[in-house]
């Protein structure tokens, strides 16, 4: 048996050596890259790349199999499968992340143009333009986007509070990993979390179009440039999404409560209608919404847009909240009502406080959904100072796309950060609803 093990290890070494040799041969015999039109091409690179991939994957899988034979012979093939799974997943991660990383590096690059000749220096990836040249690293694109935002002292104070609160949240989230654990830490973290929400909300509410202007050489105010308005667009989007989220919570909690806790005639029919209605996105009745808003003098107002969104938000949120209440025992309310609380009192003082996590989820879910909405915003909001971030970015892609690529990338990164942060902070809650049996897709 020991001799068998040795054979396995020996074959592992041979396989690894052969695979490495093959990869080396494929790489070293590759022809020099040539320019074809505007592109740098390595002739025949694809089959070399494929060959290398097969060699690496196959070699690793075989090695894992042999290692498995040597250690746990019955499960040897599992080792092979696991090894090739890792490689495959990393390849998928590479493909999924390539645009993200590329976007980040464009936003931190001095080159502001999508056109232009390929660089002659640097490694192969830089010379072929597959990645922007790291030598041009710079924050100039972000400055360009943020330069025309003139915050007042109050705003700076709020920004300071926000940043501090975020740091506290991060710190208190990381500390338990190093063994610090206490109830007080949890409380501090909760408090800091709400501070993040509160200061962000105040900041969004207090910043207005007046803070966005350029300054000419002789000190006069100029209208903001396309890039300079982007922070305003982000603020607008946050305002609209936040209000829609709050409205969704306000309007759906009582409905969800009635559906879950009360039995009355017509309950099933109404529930059916709610579930049915949420399958029709609001924007399908785009023309009618436009007509309605033009009659209500609500075109080009945030109010009109928020009202239009709220209609679509309610049904789904009520359904989710109903499901949540169904999973709670009614004994708490019964207790409260035996103690003399009214039904509304039981709802207000018992149900709402214990549903805070669920309400937060409804808010965030609506917030993220609204943030990415485009068609209604584009139809209802005409004035540039009211644009949302999606419309603002479209202004880049339809006008000076080729020349403002860097500024657009920086704007895209800035616009994505709030949602990215929210999504990863509440990842499990936000993705968990899409498990089996849920209604919405």
């Amino acid at each position, binding site marked *: 048996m020991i001799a068998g093990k040795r054979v396995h290890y020996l074959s592992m070494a041979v396989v690894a050596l052969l695979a490495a040799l093959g990869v080396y041969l494929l790489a070293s015999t590759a022809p020099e890259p040539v320019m074809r039109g505007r592109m*740098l*091409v390595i002739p025949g*690179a*694809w089959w070399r790349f494929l060959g290398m991939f097969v060699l690496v994957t196959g070699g690793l899988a075989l090695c894992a199999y042999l290692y498995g034979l040597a250690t746990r012979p019955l499960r040897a093939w599992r080792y092979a499968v696991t090894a090739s*799974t890792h490689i495959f*997943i990393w390849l998928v*991660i590479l493909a*999924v992340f*390539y*645009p993200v990383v*590329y976007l980040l590096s*464009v936003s931190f690059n001095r080159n502001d143009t*999508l056109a232009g000749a390929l660089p002659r220096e640097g490694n192969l990836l830089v010379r072929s*333009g*597959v990645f922007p040249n790291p030598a041009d690293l710079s924050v100039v694109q972000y400055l360009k986007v943020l330069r025309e935002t003139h915050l007042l002292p109050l705003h700076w104070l709020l920004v300071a509070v926000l940043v501090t609160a975020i740091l506290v949240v991060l710190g208190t989230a990381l500390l338990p990993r190093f063994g610090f654990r206490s109830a007080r830490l949890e409380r501090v973290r909760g408090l800091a979390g709400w501070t993040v929400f509160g200061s962000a909300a105040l900041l969004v509410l207090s910043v207005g179009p007046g803070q966005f202007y350029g300054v000419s050489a002789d000190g006069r105010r100029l209208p903001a440039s396309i890039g300079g308005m982007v922070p305003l667009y982000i603020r607008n989007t946050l305002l609209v999404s936040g209000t829609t989220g709050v409205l969704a919570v*306000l309007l759906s909690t009582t409905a969800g409560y009635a559906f879950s806790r*009360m*039995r*009355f*005639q017509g*309950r*099933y*029919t109404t*529930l059916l209608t*709610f*579930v049915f*209605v949420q*399958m029709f996105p*609001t924007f*399908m009745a*785009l*023309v*009618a919404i436009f*007509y309605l808003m033009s009659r209500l*003098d609500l075109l080009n107002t945030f109010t009109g847009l928020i009202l*239009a969104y709220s*209609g*679509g938000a*309610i049904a789904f949120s009520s359904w989710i909240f109903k499901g949540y209440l169904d999973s709670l025992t*009614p004994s708490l309310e019964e207790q409260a*009502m035996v103690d003399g609380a009214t039904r509304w009192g039981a709802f207000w003082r018992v149900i709402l406080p214990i549903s805070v996590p669920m309400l937060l989820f409804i808010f965030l879910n609506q917030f993220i959904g609204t943030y*990415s909405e485009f*068609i209604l915003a584009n*139809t209802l909001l005409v004035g540039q100072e009211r644009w949302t971030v*999606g419309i603002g*970015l*479209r202004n880049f*892609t339809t006008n000076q*796309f080729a020349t403002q690529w860097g500024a657009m*990338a920086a704007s*895209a990164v800035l616009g*994505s950060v709030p*949602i990215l942060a929210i999504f*990863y902070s509440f*990842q499990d809650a936000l993705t968990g609803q*899409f*498990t089996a*049996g849920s*209604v919405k*897709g």
Partner: protein
Amino acid sequence: MKDHLPRSRTTAGGVFRSLGLIALALLLATAVGVAGYLLVRLLAPEAPAFVGIPIGTVALVLVLRYIARRFAWIMPWYYLLPAIVFLLTFTFFPVVLTIGLAFTDYAGVRNGELNVSSETPIVAIDGERLQIANPGTLDCRSLRDGCNGVRAVVYASGEVTLPAESLDGTTLVLGEEPPAGRTVVGVELDMPDLGFAATLRVVEQDGPVLTLERQPPFPPDLTSVGVVLDRQAIRRTIVAEEGDRLTLDAPLPEDVEAVSIARYNDFGFVGWRNFRRILASAPRALVPVFGWNISFAFLTVLLNLAAGVFIAVLLNNKALRFRNLYRTLLIIPWALPSVITIQVWKGFLNQNFGAINRVLALLDISPEPINWLLGDATAARAAVILVNLWLGLPFMMTATLGALSAIPDDVYEAARIDGASAWQAFWSVTGPLLRTALVPITLSSFAFNFNNFNVIFLLTDGGPPVPWGTATARGTDILISWAYNEAFRSQGGYAYGFGSAISLIIFVITLGVSLMNFRVTGALKEEARA
């Protein structure tokens, strides 16, 4: 199943009684709201239309309090009321309105507003008959049936000449009352000593007594004073039109001097005309757009599902190290706002400078740079589907992982005891269980992608133009983007009514898919018994 709580056992009211009471309350509130709006507008003519909403809300609260005292069983409906009101106003009503508008010729040039640029002078008046200076300015050709049945505004003269009795400082007393109901905005006083007339603003008016802004510098001629009146707008409807002669539905008042007329951009009911137009252009618009719409949604769902299930099955291997890290990393396209990432993809897919073509060139995969977005339709379609795969993969992966983790371990245990191999267990245990869980997700994903406006509009903008399409129905246009192009873009002529007709078709299709989803999931079976 009985109520959880003791108090709402008294649910005596039927559905119709409850809804009827609530409808009554809403109707009353609406009436109060409209009345309030009209009242506010009397006091402040500039007030926007939505001031009626808070007024109506207050009325609603009062009415509801009264009803709750009389009929206690209505309580559950009160909890539903905020949601129902919003659903009715901003979801249900727009749907009904869409149906209505689909049968009208509502459009940019027929938007129901007053057309200010159509104002043309009136040459002669004879009772309800008018002769206008320029029929071309009134421009009735863009309307459905000429100017017949179109609302119009006749502007009455701004000036009458009256004698004055006296002038004392800034107070001018006219010999006659100015026309009733009109406001005097100024007087034109002829000053013989000066040799020309001066116009003075009137700051206050009380019958024939006018207060001027200042004293006239020279004694004016009081026998004939030009009294400048505010412009008066008289609403009429044009009932017949013949060249430069118009007939109104009623004669104009005797005492005014009509000077000009402007028309409204009226729209009206046109029956099935929009649908006939859709059918008439079907070979070039409806059929190719619908075909691509279906295949786009189908291919997207198929690809996303295949890739998502594959990766999820790989990640579901509990022995796999870093599986949570992998899941967290792979979820990133979902965590970024799609409205931003899609537009960034537009840059990546740029023909000459985009990252994708550079990678393809470096690996020598495509001999020529592919013109993804502006070249031929096939490339643009492939681009849309691939970007949608990038966007949708995390969702399908997460959904499948959720479904997989819901399968209890003892099922596998039982399969193993029965002697099934791992492969057999996967095919005959995981497969069927996964399918049941994924069917509703697949269906709703299909419904979502069927109307995935964002990815089409922001990536390809519906383009490129194709020889078999029209200006509004191009290579990658789906039904909803076609409707948008017709309704909100110049190449579609802002044909809102036509766009609504297309929306109606989308409604019907979505309804079908949703019904199917209902049937498959049985989402509400449990509730029906409750």
